[in-house]
């Protein structure tokens, strides 16, 4: 199997082509003038001066239009700008002539050849602007790619962490111990619990998970998790789920709410002695799906606003990468209730 050589990074390609192009033009200009009979020295001066001026004007244009990207780009887009640039350049060069050449040279080789010069400048400008546009597109692609892979990475890490969390003693073995306890005292319940655990893990460990799921699907999965935890903690855990009817078909990124609920239970149940209510609310607020997860905590000894390590910060990061906004995840801690609210824009 042959291996193709790794392509040079696009930035290197960019500079190399610019350099090659620039040198070719300088050389071409100089050779034409010499062919027409000009003195090599003066021809060189002319080539350098006029082309450097052109380069300067092109760079200026490119810089000025750096953030301008019209909706439909085509090869023809730059013709008017290139023509304008060419014309301006000719006029500018004419104005600067006295400083560059003696009158004799200027009369024969410049003033007589204004039209060819204009067309050459037009071509060069057009090529330069296209080249520049190409570079900008590549840069944008690169940024998109890296953002996309960061989102992927975070989603995968969130998934892995969630799975690890579930397979850790805290959840899995305690749940198995509960099943063990029920086998003799309430075998029917033991079987139900075992099936719930199996269903839950099957969904968690599924390989091809879609990036987005509906609220009802997510709540089904979370519901299983909460059922299992309820059996473990007996009456100490009281989950409350309040979902507006209009939000059941709304979409949210998968593995987004799960870590928050896991944390709510972890911090709620181990910080507070008596019954603990974990509340999950969902409703539609205009174009947003608003999800809230609440848990009680002890303001004196509790963590309060201390994030949740990976959980909260990764949710905030994923939301930013997916929707480009920092204000979609908010937390508050008052009256002994820690609340996380996520607003998910519905894009259809």
């Amino acid at each position: 199997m042959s291996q193709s050589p790794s392509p040079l990074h696009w930035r290197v390609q960019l500079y190399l082509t610019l350099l090659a192009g620039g040198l070719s033009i300088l050389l071409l200009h100089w050779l034409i003038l010499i062919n027409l009979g000009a003195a090599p020295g003066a021809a060189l001066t002319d080539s350098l001066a006029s082309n450097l001026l052109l380069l300067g004007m092109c760079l200026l244009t490119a810089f000025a239009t750096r953030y301008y990207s019209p909706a439909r780009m085509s090869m023809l887009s730059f013709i008017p700008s290139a023509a304008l640039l060419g014309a301006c350049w000719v006029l500018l060069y004419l104005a600067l002539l006295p400083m560059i050449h003696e009158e004799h040279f200027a009369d024969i080789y410049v003033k007589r050849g204004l039209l060819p010069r204009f067309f050459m400048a037009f071509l060069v400008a057009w090529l330069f602007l296209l080249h520049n546009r190409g570079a900008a597109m590549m840069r944008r692609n690169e940024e998109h790619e890296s953002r996309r892979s960061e989102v992927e990475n975070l989603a995968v890490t969130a998934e892995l962490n969630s799975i690890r969390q579930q397979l850790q003693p805290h959840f899995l073995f305690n749940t198995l111990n509960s099943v063990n306890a029920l086998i003799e005292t309430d075998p029917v319940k033991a079987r139900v619990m075992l099936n719930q655990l199996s269903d839950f893990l099957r969904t968690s460990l599924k390989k091809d998970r879609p990036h987005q799921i509906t609220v009802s699907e997510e709540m089904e999965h979370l519901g299983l998790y909460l059922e299992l935890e309820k059996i473990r903690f007996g009456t100490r855990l009281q989950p409350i789920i309040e979902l507006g009817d209009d939000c059941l078909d709304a979409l949210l990124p998968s593995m987004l709410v799960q870590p928050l609920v896991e944390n709510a239970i972890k911090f709620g149940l181990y910080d507070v002695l008596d019954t603990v209510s974990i509340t999950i609310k969902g409703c539609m607020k205009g174009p947003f799906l608003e999800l809230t997860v609440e848990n009680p905590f002890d303001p004196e000894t509790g963590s309060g606003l201390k994030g949740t390590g990976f959980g909260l910060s990764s949710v905030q990061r994923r939301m930013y990468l997916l929707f480009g906004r920092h204000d979609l995840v908010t937390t508050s801690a008052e009256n002994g209730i820690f609340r996380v609210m996520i607003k998910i824009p519905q894009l259809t």
Partner: protein
Amino acid sequence: MKKVVIIDDEPLARSIIMEFLREYPVEIVAECENGFEGYKAIKTLAPDLVFLDIQMPKLSGFEMIELLEDPPYIIFSTAFEEFAIKAFEANALDYLLKPYSQERFDKAMAKFLGIKTGDKPQTTVLAAVPLEDHLQRIAVTSGSQIRIIPVNQVYCLEAYDDYVKIHTADDTFLKKQTLSFFENALDPRSFCRVHRSFLLQLAQVSRIGQLGKESHQAQLRNGFTVPLSRSGYPKLKQVLGL
């Protein structure tokens, strides 16, 4: 009949221990769902054996044992294997990893039943390993109650024989522990050992003044004064950025 207390925050975990104990000549005198109740039960009922979970709300199993002056025999029952070594060092009778079978349980009980009458439990009052990096809270007894003091409410700690006096804004508690233990367990960014017998919380220092010709003292927000040793004074100044 031997008396047994079961301490676990999950009701099903407690019920399985009760089920496994069915054939044994023991009396289950109490079932507790957290360390506070467990502490009270152990102090008032003086059981011979305690089944103890480690991860429990507010007070961990280790923190609870640490407060007992005369701990009974302990068999840990937990889903975490990380604490096995600590349990071994504490001379626990056994360490049951959830979920466990009747056979495994019987092995643990065999150790208990094999104890000759007259043997005393060797459970040592060990330094409670904080479940996070730095100690965030200190468990103390006040009468028969357990109080949890968040570390930021501790103004200073004073060595007092075998004990440490823990000073809060307007109260003082005793804990059987060494000052050096606290020096290592507390966050050094918040606490500073300024004297052989004193450890203070930096946030509570309101003033540093001169005491005698060569000695200094720090005044805390509640008016309490803490003497600074010859090396403690520059150390405190440096940590406070003066």
